[in-house]
């Protein structure tokens, strides 16, 4: 295929509850280091959440951090780290040909809740409602904060796609490169969800909010005693380029995007549909021109909910029943559910397996739920499997949005 029609990943910037760069994140995934902690949530008291501890002021002034949002702060950190990692000459690059595409689960809840809280604390004085509320809550806000911070004059927007956001952001970036709309795409997903009370309360009302006296054990996808989602923040931004451009500047290439699919369940607001998930994975594999057995590793979305995990393991069993060599792992046991960031972050955590041939385990399984059994599931200890060429990354969300992204080890 023509190198102008091949899209590669040449930079990764991330913050996860257990690491603020790819090296630390990967090390902690292999060593089963959790990033889930106890934290105080307004009205509700102590809850578990995955919180990031990156330096907010590494790339942003205190004033602009105050004016912006936590989502914007995470985005700015990840985008700057990604560009630095890519080796792009940022001073000379044409900023009008750089695009920013971020998947988000939601945006604006944090700021809206804070304004209402402040107003409530001040005798409902509506004149205290901040003039910053609108620019903070418009849905392009996190992507727009990146452009302001990095002087990018190309397009920017977010992709509202629930917890499929991380994959969807990458897919959008890839498509815009293929269309020739931009020469560099900063694409991925972000989440600031633990800063909002409402998401915790809503998952609690659904009976789907994780809890455990030891917060590091609260997020336990596929375990028989799982009790819900540990809500997390985080972000991951990739530098995407056409292979022809990456070759020209002799860039380090992490992976090539070779397959993708997004589809819809059309069945329920919250409950997933395993048939549609199978269709999504198979569509991505077909689009990549691969056979089922070519996939070396599947990262499950696996959130730790009762029905979600059962449905997805059924989908993965069905989708890969013809393959005995496909391994399966998941990442939310370590970091909780990073919502709009989940897909992009979890893919990043697995990309180093192209180099070392090691699959990081899904952690916190004490007793595997019999309904969540799937062949070649890697749990609790890393597994060396040798050559890893293709990774399929699942990321699903409410309202029945499914996404699957396939990346290939790049070989010159």
């Amino acid at each position: 295929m023509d190198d102008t029609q091949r899209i590669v990943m040449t930079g990764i910037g991330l913050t996860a509850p257990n690491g603020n760069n790819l090296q630390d994140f990967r090390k902690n995934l292999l060593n089963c280091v959790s990033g889930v902690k106890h934290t105080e949530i307004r009205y509700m008291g102590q809850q578990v959440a995955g919180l990031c501890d990156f330096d907010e002021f590494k790339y942003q002034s205190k004033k602009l951090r105050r004016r912006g949002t936590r989502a914007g702060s995470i985005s700015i950190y990840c985008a700057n780290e990604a560009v630095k990692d890519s080796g792009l000459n940022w001073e000379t690059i044409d900023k009008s040909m750089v695009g920013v595409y971020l998947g988000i689960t939601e945006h604006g809840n944090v700021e809206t809740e804070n304004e209402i809280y402040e107003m409530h604390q001040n005798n409902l004085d509506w004149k205290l409602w901040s003039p910053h509320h609108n620019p903070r809550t418009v849905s392009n806000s996190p992507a727009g904060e990146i452009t302001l911070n990095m002087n990018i004059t190309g397009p920017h927007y977010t992709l509202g796609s629930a917890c499929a956001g991380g994959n969807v952001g990458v897919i959008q970036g890839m498509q815009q490169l293929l269309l020739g709309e931009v020469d560099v795409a900063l694409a991925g997903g972000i989440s600031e969800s633990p800063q909002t009370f409402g998401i915790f309360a809503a998952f609690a009302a659904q009976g789907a909010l994780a809890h455990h006296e030891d917060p590091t054990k609260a997020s336990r996808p596929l375990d028989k005693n799982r009790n819900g989602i540990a809500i997390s923040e985080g972000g991951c931004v990739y530098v995407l380029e056409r292979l022809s451009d990456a070759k020209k500047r002799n860039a380090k290439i992490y992976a090539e995007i070779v397959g993708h699919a997004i589809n819809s369940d059309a069945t329920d607001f919250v409950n997933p549909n395993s048939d549609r998930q199978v269709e999504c994975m198979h569509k991505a594999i077909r689009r990549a021109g691969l056979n089922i057995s070519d996939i070396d590793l599947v990262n499950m979305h696996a959130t730790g909910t009762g029905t979600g995990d059962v449905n997805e393991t059924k989908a993965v069993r069905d989708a890969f029943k013809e393959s005995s060599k496909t391994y399966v792992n998941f990442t939310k046991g370590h970091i909780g559910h990073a919502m709009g960031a989940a897909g992009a972050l979890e893919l990043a955590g697995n990309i180093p397996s192209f180099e070392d041939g090691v699959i990081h385990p899904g952690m916190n399984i004490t007793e595997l739920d019999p309904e969540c059994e799937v062949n070649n599931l890697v749990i609790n200890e890393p597994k060396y499997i040798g050559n890893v060429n293709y990774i399929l990354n699942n990321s699903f969300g409410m309202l029945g949005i499914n996404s699957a992204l396939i990346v290939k080890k790049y070989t010159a």
Partner: protein
Amino acid sequence: MTASNVRQIVLDIISDIAPDEDVSVLDDTKSLREQLDLDSMDFLDIVMELRKRHKVEVPQEDYSKLATLESCVTYLSPKFA
């Protein structure tokens, strides 16, 4: 409340709104916008914080009276009386 107290109240608010700035070197007679990286939204924040922290209201037609530290003190002192 003394003029010095009012000045300190304004400085405390500016310090929070522009945390990267050194407010100790401000010339009271010069425009705040000339000396600090402040824009119109920052002035709205100053007005908002005066209302939130001290229940002092600054109507829109009076915003220009917050141009310098000195004019802030002159304008606000009666409101803190």
